[in-house]
């Protein structure tokens, strides 16, 4: 482990330093930064595979001069899985970035961007490898800071600066909770090493453990983007350069999933009451549903994708939450199933979300706008981007036989198998969560039908879209790689399950791979093959075969005459893009049906002609939806905090004497308390 890890670290470190050595040579900076990142990520993929196949965890450490801090790294199955995921998406992002950053040549420093990019990848790698609480916090903080710097790449725009500030504040609130969690764990262990967390000298009492559970959920949940802590995602992810958005949305928020698994299953050894799992499940269900609902109303393509990250984190938490509930009832096989479902969705989401962000980045590169209402007809102008985006869209909409479908199917099964639980409440609540997941699934389908249909089909809606051109080849390769991975993960679950099983075995201690792979691996079964089974390769084959059947029937019934092309009938007028359905119009029925959640306000102002009220001179239509959490939670909170700060201001007179007096009074009070 030592040598590949050393090479990876050297690769990233060189990627951080070398690009800065070639000032004002953007081409060279670009190639060096992303080339080194690509090499380092390949090392990460190798090391991740080694770690997943190794029977025992690999560990090493370097002590430091600071007390409590050792640079300890440990590569167990869980770390390896996340390292593999980070490196895989990182590799594709590095290829993609070679083309993407060319747009900024001469406008911003490519060297700095590339250097920060490597630093960001390095910090994420260290987060999942760290084996010491202190070291973990340092890596976590670096990850947050580097991603913040990357978010504000285009800092000359005020909305980017606002997004960056928002992100910085939210992530630090999260970090504060994480520090509290670790301090609580430290109380029991007396050391920051993860080994001591696992096996503390004085195990924490139950109420402290509960406190640690809640603190960790809030702290890591802020990074993961669970509702109601998700508010920063739709600001920060769109503001960042697209390959960074892909990494943040696809990979960085998953480090929080890693940390939650680490704390709940590893540190607490999986000993927790049923309601912990239920809370996680509930948050998952609410995040999934609200995430997709807000995504539907979003017409900025990258914000839409950011909201879908909230949704998919919710789906992952549904799997993990179900696993936790099963585990607390000692149904370990089902617990393993829930975890495997959650982990499978974790890697799937990383791949297709990065792919979709690459697609959105390509559209931004080609049209210089993120507003979907200005796209249209791009499939003809950008066939590669369009094809890859379609694969990503079908995957995220969980349609067979892609990867999103397989993992969502597994989540469904683990929720359905709740009928084996002893508690009637759980028996009923888990299928209800499945119903919410079903609704989420179809709404995601609607949302991506909108995203793809409005962006890529019909007539161009603006001159940007009319003059768009296909993106350079590195960007196409980056998207192509991830498209291929999407399809492979969907068609070959039998190759993926054993790896995931290795991870869940390391957390729960029960291997179910042989039970999940029925019929020599051709069918996937959730523990019990009688209850349900799925064979995505056979479904894929059947789909291809029936398409062939359709073609054969067409030929057989004489449908071979050449097509005639003609304009779309538009009731006698010439069809223009203004007649097309817009994204806003497309989701109007949904907005109306779910108006309780959206609380839409519509403003229609009409100026009539003076002669007659039947003819309008000008119409102005405005609509917006109420972001519930912002209006009813964050705005009052912010108002309260700044109000409090205002009132506190009277103690700040700016006089040195006064401050000295404060110190004196504090000392006296402390002395009195001490005596």
């Amino acid at each position, binding site marked *: 482990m030592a040598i590949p890890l050393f090479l990876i670290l050297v690769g990233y470190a060189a990627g951080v330093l070398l690009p800065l050595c070639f000032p004002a040579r953007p081409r060279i900076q670009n190639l060096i930064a992303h080339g080194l990142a690509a090499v380092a990520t390949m090392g990460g993929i190798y090391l991740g595979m080694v770690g997943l196949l190794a029977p025992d965890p690999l560990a090493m450490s370097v002590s430091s001069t600071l007390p409590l801090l050792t640079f300890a790294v440990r590569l167990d199955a869980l770390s390896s899985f996340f390292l593999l995921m980070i490196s895989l998406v990182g590799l594709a992002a590095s290829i993609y970035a070679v083309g993407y950053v060319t747009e900024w040549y001469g406008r911003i420093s490519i060297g700095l961007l590339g250097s920060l990019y490597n630093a960001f990848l390095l910090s994420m790698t260290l987060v999942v490898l760290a084996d010491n609480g202190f070291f973990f916090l340092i890596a976590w903080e670096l990850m947050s800071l580097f991603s913040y710097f990357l978010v504000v790449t285009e800092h000359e725009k005020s909305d980017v600066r606002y997004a960056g500030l928002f992100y910085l504040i939210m992530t630090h609130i999260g970090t504060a909770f994480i520090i509290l969690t670790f301090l609580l764990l430290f109380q029991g262990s007396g050391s920051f090493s993860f080994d001591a967390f696992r096996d503390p000298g004085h195990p924490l009492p139950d109420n402290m453990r509960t406190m640690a559970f809640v603190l960790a959920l809030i702290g890591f949940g802020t990074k993961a983007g669970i509702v109601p802590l998700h508010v920063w995602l739709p600001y920060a992810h769109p503001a960042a350069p697209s390959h960074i958005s892909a990494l943040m949305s696809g990979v960085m928020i998953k480090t929080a999933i890693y940390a939650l698994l680490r704390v709940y299953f590893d540190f607490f050894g999986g000993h927790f009451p049923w309601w912990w799992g239920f809370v996680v499940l509930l948050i998952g269900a609410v995040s999934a549903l609200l995430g997709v609902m807000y995504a539907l109303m979003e017409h900025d393509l990258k914000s839409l994708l950011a909201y879908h990250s909230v949704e998919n984190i919710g789906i992952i938490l549904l799997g993990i939450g179900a696993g936790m509930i099963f585990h607390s009832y000692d149904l370990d096989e089902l617990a393993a199933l829930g975890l495997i479902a959650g982990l499978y969705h974790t890697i799937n989401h990383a791949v297709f979300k990065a792919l979709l962000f690459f697609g959105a980045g390509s559209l931004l590169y080609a049209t210089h706008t993120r507003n979907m209402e200005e796209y249209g007809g791009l499939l003809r102008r950008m066939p590669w981007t*369009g094809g890859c985006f379609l694969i990503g869209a079908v995957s995220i*909409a969980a*349609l*067979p036989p892609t990867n999103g479908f397989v993992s969502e199917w597994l989540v469904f*099964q683990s929720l*359905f198998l709740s009928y084996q639980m002893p508690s009637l409440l759980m028996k*009923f609540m888990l299928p209800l969560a*499945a*119903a*919410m997941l*079903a*609704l989420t*699934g*179809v709404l995601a*389908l*609607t949302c991506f*039908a*909108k995203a793809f*249909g409005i962006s890529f*089909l*019909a*007539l161009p809606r603006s001159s940007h879209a009319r003059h768009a051109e296909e993106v350079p080849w590195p960007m196409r390769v980056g998207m192509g790689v991830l498209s291929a991975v999407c399809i492979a993960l969907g068609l070959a679950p039998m190759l993926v399950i054993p790896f995931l099983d290795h991870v869940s075995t390391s957390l729960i201690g029960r291997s179910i791979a042989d039970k999940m792979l*029925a019929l020599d691996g051709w069918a996937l079964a959730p523990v019990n*093959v*009688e*209850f*349900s*089974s*799925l*064979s995505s390769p*056979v*479904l894929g084959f*059947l*789909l*291809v075969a*029936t398409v062939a*059947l*359709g073609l054969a*029937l*067409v030929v057989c019934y*004489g*449908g071979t*005459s050449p*097509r*005639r*092309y003609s*304009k*779309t*009938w*538009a009731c006698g007028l010439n069809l223009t*893009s203004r*007649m*097309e*359905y817009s994204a806003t*119009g*497309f*989701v109007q*029925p*949904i907005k109306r*049906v779910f108006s309780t959640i959206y609380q839409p306000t519509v403003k229609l102002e009409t100026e009539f002609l003076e002669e007659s009220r039947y003819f309008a001179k000008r119409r102005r239509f405005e609509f917006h939806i109420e972001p519930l959490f912002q209006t009813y939670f964050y705005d009052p909170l912010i108002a309260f905090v700044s109000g409090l700060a205002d009132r506190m201001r009277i103690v700040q007179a700016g006089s040195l004497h006064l401050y000295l007096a404060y110190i004196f009074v504090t000392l006296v009070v402390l002395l009195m308390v001490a005596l």
Partner: protein
Amino acid sequence: MIKDQSIPQAIALTLAQAIVLLAVSPAIVGLIKKVKARFQCRQGAGILQPYADLKKLFRKQPVVSTTTSWIFTATPYIVFASTVTAGLLVPIFVSQMPLNFAGNIIAFVYLLALGTFFLILAGLDAGSPFGGMGSSREAIVASLTEPAMIMAIFAIALTAGSTNLSTIVHRTALLEGIVTDPSPHLMALAAVFIVALAETGRVPVDNPATHLELTMIHEAMVLEYSGRYLALLEWASAIKLLVFLTLIANVFAPWGIATSFTPMALSIGLAVYLVKVAGLGLLIGTIECMFAKLRLFRITDLLGVAFILALLGLLFFYILRS
């Protein structure tokens, strides 16, 4: 699972299923149209008219809009393929299907969703406002039906201890694990029936006989299609209708279906199956004449009722069990 079947037998059975689906589906559409005609005191076209329509459509030269992309021409094939594949997961006249292992009820629902997804895209592709309108409406109807569908079948699945359709049907046909109180089944049946009406675009959710922009959903999405593409889509929607009728007939009343592979059982199974789906076709035809189409935003109430019924079925099941 494939247990007592050899590979050639499995392939033969799968092909037989596909042939039944392809061959019978236009007749059901014809039957429903005939029933409606008789209710309206008309003679109506013969039951076999849809076959002639399809044959003619296949030969006609298709006209394709210059606005469209490859999505438009690929969609009929994808919709056809996803519908037939979904149909192959539902037992038709044999309860033990060879493809049982390939997917359960979730796979069935999501395969149909694959077709819906591409139909929505195709509706947008021509750029005509009618297509977009149909797509937008189809999206909301699909969003509300699927949760109800999954919940309803799950309530049934619990009785049989499986979510694989073939296993459910086989166990129910052999009266394994049947509850004494049929109320969960009846509630689920009502829910699935409403879902079937919505998914296949029948009255009171959609009206397949109209081309009026105020009301149409499915017809609006396929408005730009002609020739062989329209033939495939029409055929696919007939198959979808038949698949839903099959699902209702076999999951809720599987009696008569062949539970073994003897020639006698198979022929009885086929005959009973045809009688059952014809009966359901008559019912749908009658409903189309008795009820008016609902306003678009009233559909949500109907589908909400379906969802609540399915949930109640589930709750009743647990209460009756415990």
